[in-house]
């Protein structure tokens, strides 16, 4: 009997202990469950939501890099070996039909054989992106990048908050749009343009597509626009010494025809006072009237005889002009500086069909047009000097890459093109573009423009010292190391050159996130 009683006492103690442990365990489990739920929501979901944007922006950066490469080396941009396909599979993206049909587009990451369905990266390939690039405007060329980034959501599928919009949840899933079982965006909008009420078809891309893992996708759209090396009449990195008191710096727009003077009547007056001058140091000596804005870097320019805004606190640097990289097969040297441009179907200077000519020096040059006055293009590389005379027939677009110096009289510089036509290049000055390949210090480069006569040309020579002697007039634009007007020279900036000269780079002008 005593033993039984003792056994009962021991059993009660064990039971009490077990009950106590059970109660404590339940409470602890409840705490842990709440912690885990909140942790999943606050950590994993937020992490994936942010990483999805990083993935989207990473894809956009890849596309942006290819656009910049397309500007400098079209043949190597958007390589198929990396998964790019062109044109982008319709309807991704939606082709731009206005103002004129533009079919230039690329895509990566979409289901185009043999490219994969997405470009994976990150730890365990937890991130991926899909990108399309299409051109939405021409002259200047403007590109649109649409990138979608996806981040896998780690953990169990049903670990999140719900879509209730009340005082507790605030609709966190509504913000982050988590795809637990299927791709909500594809089901609602297909490739992006389908209406939520539209019937799902292969054309609009709508489909109830399941996902292997819970994931979050974010989409961004970037607009990329060109940066022109021509930003004003004269841009000199070290010094500017203006023309004599009777000289002038002003502007016009060749798409409206030839230069009409410094103070023309309407409607030409709107383009007459944009002859901006920028110098990268304090070395600024004005000289004659400047119709435009003036910037210096620590100078003392005043508004006297300057029609526009004066800012003496603007610093800048000029990118050196590198040696050219011909992408076409080299054309046999014509034998002399007088030659006829090889007849090709080249649409611009960078067209792979555009011929390249090479000279050790270029003197008494005559470049003829094989097609009457039709627009033709050629590149001329001169490892020495350009001097004596130059004649360029109407319709010829020539781009010089000069390693030496340039010296010529205006009367010997014969640019037979005219302002106002054709629409693809209405600038007379834009038909002769002189690029001075930057010399290696201590070597120097000089461009001497001598009287009598006038020059119609565009100069991009960031390492050159330009000297206008006497009283010639230059119609065009100049980017140089220094500029000196030793006489009553006239400098007439053609505003159309900003659109004609090849962009020096591209920039992102707009960023918007598709929050649907």
């Amino acid at each position: 009997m005593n033993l039984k009683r003792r056994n009962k006492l021991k059993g009660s103690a064990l039971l009490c202990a077990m009950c106590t442990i059970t109660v404590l365990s339940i409470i602890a489990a409840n705490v842990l469950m709440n912690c885990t739920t909140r942790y999943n929501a606050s950590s994993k979901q937020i992490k994936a939501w942010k990483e999805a944007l990083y993935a989207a922006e990473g894809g956009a950066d890849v596309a942006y890099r290819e656009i910049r490469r397309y500007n400098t080396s079209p043949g190597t941009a958007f390589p198929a070996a990396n998964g790019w396909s062109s044109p982008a599979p319709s309807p991704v993206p939606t082709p731009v039909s206005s103002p004129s049909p533009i079919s230039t587009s690329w895509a990566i990451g979409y289901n185009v054989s043999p490219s994969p369905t997405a470009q994976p990266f990150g730890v365990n390939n937890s991130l991926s992106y899909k990108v399309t690039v299409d051109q939405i405007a021409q002259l200047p060329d403007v590109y649109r990048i649409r990138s979608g980034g996806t981040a896998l959501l780690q953990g169990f599928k049903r670990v999140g908050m719900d879509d209730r919009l009340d005082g507790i949840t605030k609709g966190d899933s509504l913000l982050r749009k988590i795809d637990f079982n299927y791709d909500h965006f594809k089901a609602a909008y297909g490739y992006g343009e389908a209406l939520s009420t539209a019937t799902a078809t292969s054309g609009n891309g709508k489909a109830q597509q399941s996902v292997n893992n819970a994931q979050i996708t974010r989409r961004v759209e970037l607009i990329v626009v060109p940066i022109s090396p021509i930003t004003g009449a004269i841009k000199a990195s070290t010094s500017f010494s203006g023309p004599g008191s009777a000289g002038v710096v002003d502007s016009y727009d060749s798409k409206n025809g030839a230069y009409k003077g410094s103070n023309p009547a309407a409607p030409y007056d709107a383009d007459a006072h944009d002859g901006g001058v920028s110098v990268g140091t304090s070395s600024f000596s004005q000289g004659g009237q400047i119709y435009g804005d003036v910037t210096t870097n620590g100078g003392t320019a005043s508004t006297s005889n300057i029609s526009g805004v004066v800012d003496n606190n603007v610093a800048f640097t000029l990118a050196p002009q590198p040696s050219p990289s011909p992408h076409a097969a080299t054309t046999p040297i014509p034998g002399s500086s007088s030659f006829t441009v090889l007849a090709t179907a080249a649409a611009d200077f960078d067209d792979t069909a555009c011929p390249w000519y090479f000279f050790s020096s270029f003197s008494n040059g005559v470049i003829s047009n094989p097609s009457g006055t039709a627009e033709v293009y050629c590149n001329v590389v001169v490892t020495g000097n350009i001097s004596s005379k130059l004649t360029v027939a109407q319709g010829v677009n020539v781009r010089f890459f000069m390693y030496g110096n340039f010296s010529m009289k205006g009367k010997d510089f014969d640019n037979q093109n005219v302002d106002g036509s054709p629409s693809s290049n209405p600038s007379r000055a834009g038909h002769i573009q002189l690029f001075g390949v930057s010399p290696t210090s201590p070597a120097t480069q000089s461009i001497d423009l001598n009287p009598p006569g006038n020059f119609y040309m565009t100069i991009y020579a960031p390492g050159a010292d330009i000297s206008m002697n006497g009283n010639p007039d230059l119609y065009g634009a100049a980017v140089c190391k220094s500029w000196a007007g030793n006489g009553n020279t006239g400098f007439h900036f053609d505003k159309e050159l900003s659109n004609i000269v090849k962009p020096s780079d591209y920039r992102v002008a707009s960023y918007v996130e598709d929050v649907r």
Partner: protein
Amino acid sequence: MKKPNCHKSVAAFTLVEIMVAVGISSVLLAAILSASISLQKSLNAVDNYFSTHMQQVRIIDYLARDVKRSFSVTTSPDLKTVTCILPNYIIQSGEPEAIANSATIGTRRTPSLNGDVNNQLVDYGTTTRTVIDAQVTIGSTTLISATASFTTNDVTKPITGTRLQTGTTISSVTNSTTVVLSKTASSTGSSMVTTIYGEGMRTVYDAVATNASTTLTSATAAFTSADVGRSVVGTAIQSLTTISSVTNGTTVVLSKAANATSSAMSMTIGGTIVVYTVTGNSITRTENGTLTMIASSTDQLLPQTTDWQASNTEYTNSTVTFLPILTSNSQTMSRTGTTVYSTAYLRNKRRGN
């Protein structure tokens, strides 16, 4: 017969044993009860902490996203209000494109680009359209396009083209193919690419504002009655300023006086207005004046400090410090503030503004 041994047969506890047992049990029960209460408090604290934390993170996420996709972000002088102007990226019901073609509702808008090549602005305006067959004659104000489908709604709308002067607008509509412009054409030609701007978001560069005055002028804005209520953003314009009334095509009255004098000011008209406001214990987010509960919070958020550094730079740091109030069993539990830090990327510079 032997009398049973009562002392041996009685197995009960002594009073001392019972008292000791009761004492130990009481201590154990008290410990268990205390542990249970502590765990419950911990549960409540954790629950409240995460709930507050989630709200903070959600608001910062929304704020960062809105700032990032804005083309203009301004703060109020008291640093308690942030105003974001967003592009109208998605075509909404009731907008001109949607009225013309309901199939466009909910789709993405292709932007137009304004300005010269080195100062291009991307415009997600609502009614901009482009034709490619416009004909003009130098010195004439008549423009003809077989495809433009002009209506009286086009009067006063800005219009641009390679042969048109800057600041040209449509003065009158002769018929569906012919309009009279406010300025003469600068050259003669046909098949001209022409853009007719609508009543959506647009940017002008010649706005003139006077300090302490609500009157604003712009020779090129081509204001219409449709601009009433739209937001205006500029360096001399206060946050949350809208157009109260339109005096004429070049003059409007603003809802708030300008805070500086400026000429040739860049000013953007239109766009979606998103406003974050710290008011007492709450943070609210409104979109075009409508409270969006999804990103607003009125629960347990007490702003301790606000430090907005949203100047017009490429990068901006936005720091918000909250002091959550944690409660348990009606008792207020104190804790130090939680700093939520967000680095947002403004695109004002990248847009060339």
